[in-house]
């Protein structure tokens, strides 16, 4: 096996880890078409966020910090990924003071918040959850880095009787996992087909198949990929990228 073949397989393996994180997320995301009305919802129309809130892990989308309060009874803290895991908070930095945020919370109501400000804090920052009736949306900063956190603070405004959201943005999440696996498989096969070292093409095909199988297992048996992510973050920090 040529040195260049080893390089390519290493590169494919690194990229497959990113695919694995996303496949895990999309295959395990709750089937909202059945349970949408049971879950609280975060709606930020300005940045296209319309997603259910979970109380399990930030790896499942928008996550409600259990130490924080529910809307109307204190400080609400929501975390969301900015990269991977559906990237619910990808455009969070585009929110400006005065923008509208709504939490549709079954059993409580539709609670409107108005953005007050945004702050950048270190990753080690600990946020007080006793700050009155405010909402904090927190994600990583800058984009593609986990060195700091972007914190959006919004003040509670009005509360209306609960109305279940009708849009179904996350209902279509499920096929993305298959699409991602297909994309990885197709990419690997194309690379293998055009690889200049004819005698090593077989190695690339086998590697593509093995990694695709890896992703398929991640699809059928999704588990939070926090361990993989943690290692990826550590390696990134060591390499300074």
């Amino acid at each position, binding site marked *: 096996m040529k040195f260049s073949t080893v390089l390519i397989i290493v590169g494919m393996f690194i990229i497959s880890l990113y695919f694995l994180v996303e496949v895990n997320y999309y295959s395990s995301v709750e089937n909202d078409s059945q349970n949408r009305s049971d879950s609280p919802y975060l709606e930020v129309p300005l940045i296209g966020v319309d997603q259910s809130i979970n109380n399990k892990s930030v790896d499942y989308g928008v996550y409600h910090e259990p130490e924080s309060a529910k809307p109307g009874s204190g400080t609400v803290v929501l975390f969301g990924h900015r990269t991977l895991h559906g990237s619910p908070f990808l455009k969070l930095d585009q929110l400006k003071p005065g923008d509208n945020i709504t939490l549709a919370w079954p*059993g409580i109501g539709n609670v409107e918040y108005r953005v007050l400000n945004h702050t950048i804090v270190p990753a080690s920052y600990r946020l007080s959850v006793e700050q*009155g009736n405010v909402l904090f949306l927190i994600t990583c900063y800058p984009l593609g880095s986990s060195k700091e956190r972007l914190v959006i603070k919004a003040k509670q405004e009005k509360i209306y009787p609960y109305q279940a959201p009708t849009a179904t943005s996350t209902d279509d999440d499920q096929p993305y996992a298959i699409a991602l696996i297909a994309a990885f498989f197709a990419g690997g096969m194309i690379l293998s087909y055009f690889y200049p070292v004819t005698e090593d093409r077989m190695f690339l095909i086998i590697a593509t198949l093995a990694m*695709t199988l890896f992703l398929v297992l991640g699809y059928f048996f999704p588990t939070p990929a926090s361990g993989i992510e943690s290692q990826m973050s550590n390696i990134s920090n060591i390499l300074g990228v």
Partner: protein
Amino acid sequence: MMKKIVLASAFMFTLFAFFGASWGAEAWIQEQESSLYMSHLSTTIHIHIKNNRDHVQYFKISQQYFGTTPPIDWIIVNTNPKAVKMVKSVTPELGGDYGWRINPGETMTICFSLAATGSMGNIPTYIQQNSSMANQFWPLIPEPGLAASWFMPNEIEILNPDLDLQVWQGEFKFLLHNVDTKRVAGIVRAPIVPVDSKLTSSNPSITFVDKDVPWADTAAWDVSMAPGSSRWFSYTYQWPISSPNEPSHSGSSSSTFPKTSAAKNTTTVPTPGTGVPYGLLAIGTVVIVAGVAYSKFFR
């Protein structure tokens, strides 16, 4: 040989995609039926309402409450002074909406009684906020007992700012049945609760005030009922709980952002990682490109 492998791989992938339905989807705990059912829900409401405009206004009541599944259909039992049918109704199928004419600047005292009917009266059920949450405390069993629904007595001020609701008082009654074959016990909450209101009386006396819905002091009773038995409950609320000039539902605090990374004397939470660095992805891409370039140009 390579062609066969590619074809076999494509077949395997197609097979996988075909069967790849929704494995791994999460199942949430769903709320179950209760052994205790309510019926004969009725209410008598007294209000003082002022017309702040320089022309006549109507204070109207509908006969349906939408906050539950299915909605509660109310029948107007009695009105004092006598209400008139409105020219246009949101619930014409229930006999239309009714209202009272209020002259410019006039403060009117109105009393009306309603009784729940339809599915509430004929088919035993209990009131639950529309699509109320079943997974709130997942993975713990989220069953809190019989749930309450709530409404805003002063919603008329939002819908019609010209009308100034000064006082609202409502007495609610309902009958609770144990339809089980065994004695049952548990927490029963007032089926409908006005928000921002004060519980002024109840019969029997409440066991506690449930503040799970923060702006509604929900009357809650700890009940134990023999099989087949029934019991009447009544409770009265008054709005407003505070000064009428104080805005309701306004955010009460916007305390300053703590300057230290570990605010003292308050509960704090860490800010966990919410993103995977793109650095490794870039490295992986560069390594692949480098491998291809090396094999093409330097081999």
